[in-house]
């Protein structure tokens, strides 16, 4: 009975949504406004210009959300992850990882650099680096900086710190938050993106690694009461 009620409500809701989407006004959206101001943005790719210049707030808050999610996962885990304990260590996976990880790091660097003028940028590059970190972890390797806690924390925070530091510096210099002077915009965006690439890579890898160390195991049976 209940599933039929939910199903018919969903179908009605979907119909309303389709009607709403169909009656959206067309037009150019914000394309023309973005194109008019491309020269001031310091980059030549419009998506990068929107992400890091025109809508820089969004991206600053986004890296903040990533960090907060990682803090949440950290506070839920019970122990520090031990890569040797969860290693799948299949010879084929190990060989593939040895082959792929250097290429992935190179690919991350390329994607980060190409974001200024072509599709790419810090988030794509960070995703590739994060995947490389997961591959390393699955083979029992530590992330770089694992042995020194402060170094890992620096990698995790550097994107947000650079972003906020440059934003705050601009406020101190009399601009509004994240309002870059047009002649400096290009270099400031490169600095921010470099920090973001590193941080996003490490945060994504750490999200995976910390989730895999939450110790679901024999203790499930100990704590079960019902």
């Amino acid at each position, binding site marked *: 009975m209940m599933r039929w009620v939910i199903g018919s409500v969903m179908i009605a809701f979907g119909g309303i949504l*389709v009607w709403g*989407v169909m009656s959206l006004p067309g037009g150019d959206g914000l*394309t023309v406004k973005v194109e008019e101001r491309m020269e001031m943005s310091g980059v030549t790719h419009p998506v990068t210009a*929107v992400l890091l210049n025109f809508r820089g707030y969004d991206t600053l808050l986004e890296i903040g*959300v*990533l960090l907060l999610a990682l803090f949440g996962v950290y506070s*839920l885990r019970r122990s520090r992850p031990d890569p040797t304990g969860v290693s799948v260590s299949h010879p084929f996976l190990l060989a593939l990882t040895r082959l792929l990880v250097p290429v992935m790091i190179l690919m991350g660097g390329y994607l980060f650099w190409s974001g200024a003028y072509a599709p790419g940028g810090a988030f794509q590059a960070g995703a590739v680096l994060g995947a490389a970190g997961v591959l390393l972890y699955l083979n029992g390797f530590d992330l770089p900086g694992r042995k020194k806690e402060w170094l890992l924390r620096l990698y995790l925070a550097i994107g947000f710190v650079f972003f906020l530091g440059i934003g705050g510096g601009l406020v101190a210099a009399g601009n509004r938050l994240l309002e870059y002077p047009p002649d400096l915009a290009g270099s400031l965006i490169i600095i921010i993106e470099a920090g973001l690439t590193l941080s996003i890579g490490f945060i994504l890898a750490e999200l995976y690694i910390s989730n895999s160390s939450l110790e*679901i195991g024999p203790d499930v049976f100990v*704590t079960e009461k019902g």
Partner: protein
Amino acid sequence: MNVMYLYAVVAVLLFVIGLHGVIAYSHLLRKIVALNIMGSGTFLLLVSIAYGRPEGGPDPVPHAMVLTGIVVAVSATAFGLALVRRLYSETGKPYLPNGDTEKSGR
């Protein structure tokens, strides 16, 4: 009919399928997967709106929103999975306390 509307309708379909999953199932892993399907529908809608421009390149603002959204969705999923795993290791059940009596919780 414009191709944009085909993508937009598929996007709405994905969103509704995901919403149904969030409401109808009590297993929390299913809810997280369903939330991700809802998110994919939203992203597809934004991309199809950006594509709906008569000439020239697509609108960059929705594209930037999708990039932001994907990263937020990934981090929210990771946090949700951590919560579910901790709940499972505390209670032995991947359901919310009042959800484990429902029959639909497959």
